[in-house]
């Protein structure tokens, strides 16, 4: 079973202090550590697991500048066979444009499954995968937490809200957006990444794809980025650990819990 997996490099933001850029429509990225989008890491692992049990190949694709090849080398080290980087140049991209670019490259490849992450931890849009599916005319499912190929079909599990999953059967070829926790992504060593350097990595400039101006025009635009509105927030308890603990026990008891 041949699997294509789409990956994106994003800044690591959970522990970072974000600064709004001078234009006010993005963030300053210079001091941020770049890494593979968390959801995409699970998607790569899932693609490699499918290859290991079913045979076939895994192709990893990203859109980005040469620095974003790091995420492709990582995917190759995890077990992908080849990689493609599409260079967007200076073009402004939104989820719609990204899906059109990916579709143009993927339509000429051999595959049974296309995997993406549910969303990327920069714009948190969650639209590229399913837009790509519709453009390619593929069946699709979002927020997938289980994939078991069964011939021309796959039995899939989708995570719904409130502790409920939905199991269904989907016709292949299909596109699935992969949720975190579906598997345990393998560890990647520096040595592994170095060894994967021998694998095939193709670079395609967007200009070579012959996409129409309409397909390359973003449908949405960020007018302004701003900090979350102020709230009154928590009453902070300061002091050494022992006095903080005493205060917390007092609060918990006051709220009617006996401890």
């Amino acid at each position, binding site marked *: 079973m041949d699997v294509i997996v789409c990956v994106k490099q994003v800044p690591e933001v959970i522990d970072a202090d974000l600064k709004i850029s001078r234009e006010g429509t993005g963030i300053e990225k210079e001091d941020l550590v770049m890494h593979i989008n968390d959801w995409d890491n699970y998607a790569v692992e899932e693609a490699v697991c499918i290859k290991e049990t079913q045979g076939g190949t895994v192709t990893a694709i990203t859109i980005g500048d040469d620095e974003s090849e790091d995420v492709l080398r990582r995917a190759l080290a995890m077990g992908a066979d080849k990689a493609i980087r599409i260079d967007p140049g200076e073009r402004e991209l939104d989820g719609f444009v990204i899906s059109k670019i990916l579709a143009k490259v993927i339509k000429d490849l051999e595959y049974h499954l296309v995997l993406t992450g549910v969303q990327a931890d920069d714009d948190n849009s969650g639209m590229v995968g399913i837009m790509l599916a519709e453009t390619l005319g593929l069946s699709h499912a979002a927020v997938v937490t289980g994939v078991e190929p069964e011939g021309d079909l796959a039995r899939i599990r989708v995570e719904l809200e409130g502790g*409920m999953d939905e*199991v*269904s059967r989907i016709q292949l070829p299909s596109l699935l957006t992969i949720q975190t926790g579906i598997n345990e992504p393998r560890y990647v060593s520096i040595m592994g990444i170095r060894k994967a350097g021998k694998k095939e990595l193709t670079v395609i400039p967007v200009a070579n794809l012959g996409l129409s101006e309409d397909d390359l025009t973003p*449908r949405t635009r960020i007018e302004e980025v701003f900090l979350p509105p102020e*709230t009154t927030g928590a009453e902070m308890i300061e002091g050494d650990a022992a006095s903080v603990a005493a205060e917390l026990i007092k609060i918990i008891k006051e709220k009617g819990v006996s401890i």
Partner: protein
Amino acid sequence: MGEIYVVAEHRKGEVREITFEMLFKARELCRTFSHRLTALLLAGKDAGFADDLAKRADRVLVFENDRLETFNSDLHKEILNRVIQKDQPFMTWIAHTSWGMDLAPALSVKTGLPLATDCVDIQAEDGRPIVIRQIYSGKLFSRVSFKESPGYLMTVRSGAFLPPDDAEMEPGEVLKQDIPADLAEPRKTFVEFVDTGAGEIDITQADLLVSIGRGIGEEENIATIRELADRMGATLSCSRPVVDKNWLPKFHQVGTSGKSVRPKVYLALGISGAFQHVAGITGAGTVIAVNKDRKAPIFRVADYGVADDLFKVANALKEKLAGA
């Protein structure tokens, strides 16, 4: 601005809360601009949801068919595409749920209408919509505009708009619609729902929850917090990253994909406070958060906060309780 169409979401015989939240916000906008509000219901035969929706919209367009008893993105997309092409509503709103995320981007490509997802606010300015979205894990907000278009699609975040209890009004019309005869067979077929929340403990019944997040760092560290929870007579719960790493089973998880809890006290240790987690603790009496990052979003919703290492605080709590 023009008319707003809201796509109802229902599951296992119940209209989901997000549907009423969308109708509430859409009605507010429709009133301001004097436009009609339409609810779209795709459901199985005799689902009986239409009257409930009619109390919150000017009219309900009902598409009933056995094949629509459970959500199917192929069928929803085909039917909604035809409705949108024919009626050309100004905005069409869909829930930002797993099902909405499977439907809206496909519908956007099919109809050619632009889409903004996971909106926490929707406004109209100079005849065009403007939406507010969270980006970078909720650390920042963005104000987003659209390329000019005959119509616009949005998915709406659960909990962004909270209707008051008296959100019902004079019932609107219920209009049964024909299912297109030439609908293609869907490529995905429903098998079953699986309850993933059941397990040996029920976190929804606890008075005191001691809850751990990404800040726990390593699997080995869970034992020390479990010990604290036992000493306090508390139940251990957690946020998503702990379950994703397989460190605790899913029935411990608090949040949108886990459980909503309502303890008297919720003690959050090393939880950053992503909205998916916070949505699960709105029913908690008192929230106490311990996190070494003073800027962690959890402190925006907590009643009490401690900006310190969670293990230091946990050990001090254990010592105090042992001495008491």
